[in-house]
């Protein structure tokens, strides 16, 4: 189960997204200037199961797509960016056939009220990651 392969692959897909700016490290002091939508991703593993006698295993879970924008802009811009970012990411195909972004699930609010100024939406994308074997 190569964590690095999975993350590097998706990092490349995210950097190619045009609908919003990809922010890799959300705890940096500075985010992209202005109120333009930005996004980041978080991995959330649900289960890992063995699906072959020679060491093939399958990890399933959610790739959380978190899209944010500056305060005071309402949700329209972030929602539109969410639709576009998710669509762009779902269009990617792993040439190795190991990682599949299966489908987008329901979008939820991901803001912390007045505790921070970024308005955010989270859309989990179900993924399936198959590794192992010769």
């Amino acid at each position, binding site marked *: 189960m190569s964590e690095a392969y999975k993350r590097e692959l998706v990092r490349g897909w995210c950097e190619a997204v045009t609908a919003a700016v990809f922010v890799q490290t959300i705890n940096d002091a500075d985010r992209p200037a202005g109120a333009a939508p930005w996004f980041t991703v978080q991995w959330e593993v649900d289960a890992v199961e*063995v*699906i*072959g*006698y*020679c*060491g*093939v295993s*399958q990890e399933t879970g959610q790739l959380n797509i978190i899209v944010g924008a500056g305060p005071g802009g309402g949700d329209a811009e972030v929602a539109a960016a969410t639709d576009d970012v998710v669509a762009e990411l779902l269009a990617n195909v792993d040439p190795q056939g190991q990682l599949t972004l*299966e*489908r987008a699930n329901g979008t939820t609010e991901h803001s912390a009220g007045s505790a921070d100024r970024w308005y955010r939406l989270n859309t989990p994308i*179900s993924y*399936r990651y*198959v590794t192992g*074997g*010769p």
Partner: protein
Amino acid sequence: MPAKAYSTKGLQIWLGGTEAPAALVPTAITSAKPAVVTVANTAVVGDLVYVSNSGFPELDGKWFPVGTPTATQFELVGSDTTGTAGALATAPTVDLHAQGDAFDLSCLAKTITFNSDAPAAIQAGTYCDPSLAITSPIIPPTTVEVTGNIKIEDPAYGELIDAEADGVQRSLDIVLPFGQQHIVGPAVISMVTWDLPVDGVQGFRATMTCASKPQHRFEHA
């Protein structure tokens, strides 16, 4: 002895090819556990043999893994002829099924299930005994169902599809990891179907029909 349960990780599933087995002619078979076959030997570890007309009822019509091969002999793993009433026949035959001609399904497969049904009950009711039923003399064949993941890049998947098409009986050798030896027998790939869930991986389901029940061959403690 401490309780143990062995993982199936590393299990191998060898299904023979369509090549005709090599015919070995034994010059001697010992009354021993395991029986040792003396022959101009080409068998290696991993090969299977099918013994017929050997003169030993403990061996005839049965499949054995090859053990401890040398240039002149090999053992029949899991055999026992110590108390035999048999003697070497005048024209004994041992068919050698080389593992080199077989293909390994283990990287495709994710489950193996053996199914053996009891003989069916035949209704034979009479006026005197309307509920009379007799047991059919026909024993349903053992079937082995293998499910797995479609992967056309794996040559074994193509071999599996071809095996269904040709219907040829092949050797089946399931090598259990952690030294738990072999489950062996004959098998015909009788059907391959596919499982295509809307949310999941592309899968296949292969059904093997066995002319005789596969046997677990190992040296008994």
